[in-house]
């Protein structure tokens, strides 16, 4: 679009200017401190190393000159390509260089060599990090889905209305169902997941064994660490999503229920076929957000020893006697995963809205 319409875009495009600035900064770095080792720019003469910076200056200036209209649309892609080469030069190649230099080491580089230590740990411990990430993702996905299913059941009891013609028993049952769900939600939202994890992991198997009068060993066989982690995430998520769903359901227009009932549907039919689908759709962004939160919050399960991503980072810390390098690796992995997941969710949400606008032909 930029530069396509004459008379428009007199003002510099903000992303183009930022790109130009980044290119200029990297150019200064290339000129002032040329790299040795693998390099794109290292062997080039000084004037050639200056070209990206000069182009960036001219490109940024082009936005102020109306007569440059036609070439404007090429400036931004060109800047992106230049910046990519510079990022390769100053970020990727150094990491590759470092990897080559630590590849054959038998001991971790000394304390001060931060990048070297990180690359050393990552290059040797990556299968464990990957396994930890897989545990994290599996726990948070399964926990969110199971928690959502549980929350859908809970929210039904939470939103049961007491009618004026209900008998005393019906009123008592509805009230107690509502009270139980409310209490559950309060307990699980009012305590840290880390504390819940410890209590559930140590207490639940003992309680189950006593309750069903089976030997402890039998229960422990089923109630593994992963099961415990799954139960904790599920119960915690169910508490939050119950309230999220209640908000979504209460946002559905009251007339929808009345219309359904006036056509002869039972309360249960009306809720299942008309109210819940709309309520869940209302709550969808918050449900997806809960999944993102779970990716991060499963890290507290390290307290009972679930080998998720944070736990693996901690392992690496004891293995290599380095305090922060493993955690920075873990942080980068968490960041990449959460950001890409949220992008994916946004794309899906956008598409769902589009579908509604495009009008499905029939149900």
């Amino acid at each position, binding site marked *: 679009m930029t530069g396509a319409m004459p008379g428009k875009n007199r003002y510099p495009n903000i992303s183009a200017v930022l790109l130009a600035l980044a290119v200029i900064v990297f150019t200064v770095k290339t000129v002032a401190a040329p790299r040795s080792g693998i390099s794109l720019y290292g062997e080039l003469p000084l004037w050639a190393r200056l070209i990206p910076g000069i182009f960036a200056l001219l490109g940024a200036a082009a936005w102020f000159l109306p007569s440059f209209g036609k070439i404007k649309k090429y400036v931004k892609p060109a800047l992106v390509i230049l910046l990519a080469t510079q990022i390769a030069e100053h970020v990727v190649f150094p990491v590759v260089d470092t990897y080559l230099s630590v590849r054959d080491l038998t001991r971790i580089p000394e304390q001060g060599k931060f990048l070297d230590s990180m690359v050393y740990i990552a290059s040797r411990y990556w299968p464990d990090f990957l396994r930890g990430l897989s545990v994290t993702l599996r726990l948070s996905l399964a926990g969110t889905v199971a928690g959502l299913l549980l929350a859908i059941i809970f929210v039904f009891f939470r939103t049961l209305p007491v009618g*004026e*013609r209900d008998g005393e028993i019906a009123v008592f049952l509805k009230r107690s169902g509502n009270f139980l769900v409310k209490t559950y939600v309060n307990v699980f939202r009012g305590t840290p997941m880390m504390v819940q994890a410890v209590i559930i992991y140590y207490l639940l198997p003992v309680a189950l064994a006593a309750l069903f009068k089976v030997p402890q060993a039998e229960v422990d066989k089923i109630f593994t660490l992963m099961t415990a982690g799954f139960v904790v995430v599920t119960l915690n998520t169910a508490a939050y999503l119950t309230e999220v769903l209640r908000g979504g359901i209460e946002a559905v227009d009251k*007339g929808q229920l009345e219309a359904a009932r*006036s056509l*002869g549907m039972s309360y249960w*039919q009306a809720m299942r076929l*008309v109210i819940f689908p709309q309520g869940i759709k209302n709550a969808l962004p918050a449900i997806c957000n809960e999944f993102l939160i779970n990716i991060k919050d499963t890290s507290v399960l390290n307290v009972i020893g679930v080998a998720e991503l944070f736990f693996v980072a901690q392992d690496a810390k004891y293995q290599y006697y380095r305090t922060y390098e493993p955690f920075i690796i873990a942080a980068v992995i968490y960041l990449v995963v959460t950001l890409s997941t949220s992008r994916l969710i946004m794309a899906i949400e956008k598409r769902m809205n589009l579908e509604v606008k495009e*009008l499905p032909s029939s149900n």
Partner: protein
Amino acid sequence: MEKILEIKNLHKSFGGTPVLTDINLSVYEKEVVCVIGSSGSGKSTLLRCLNLLEYPDSGKVYFAGREITAPGVNVNRLRTEIGMVFQSFNLFANKTVLGNLTLAPRRVLKMDKKSAAEKATRVLESVGMADFAGRSPKTLSGGQKQRVAIARSLVMEPKIMLFDEPTSALDPEMVGEVLSVMKGLAAAGMTMIVVTHEMGFAREAASRVVFMDEGKIVETGPPAVIFNNPRAERTRQFLKRTLPPA
């Protein structure tokens, strides 16, 4: 003519405030009864007591010979025989137009998908909305929505239709299309109770007009009498303010 609905000594109050006091009214088959009166006079509550969206505090309602206010009445079955159209349409937002019409026949009357769709299409044709079957309700105009809402009730083949201010939420331009659908229904012999502010419709289509004030029925009579020669002073006041000077 057969008496299809009878209301006897009906009372209803909300939190101690009386909304309906001692209502007595009979409706005969194929009658079109228009209920008029100022806002807050209890017209809508009366209508909602007839399909038990509200329960009367006391009094009895008989529908097709059965007392529907008796304990143990199957409310869901009853409501399949009493259609209701709301002021705010209340079309199911998660369904298409066709889905709105087929949902209750399939789930309540247990019709199969194909025959429900066929029947729904026929009813949509009768209200001039067949071309919109695949559309989502939110893409329709108010008048179109209300016509679909009427069709949604009709597809259940009710014995009586209740209209709760069906044109009050519409742009003036769209009132006509909804009223003409209702007139067509009346002409086809549907029994209807219509709560309305459309005096023109009441005068033209009603077989009887009921004027309510402060939760009581003040006066009942043929439109010609109510509009031209009302007996009660309160009716005269109300009509003077709502009818354009002749």
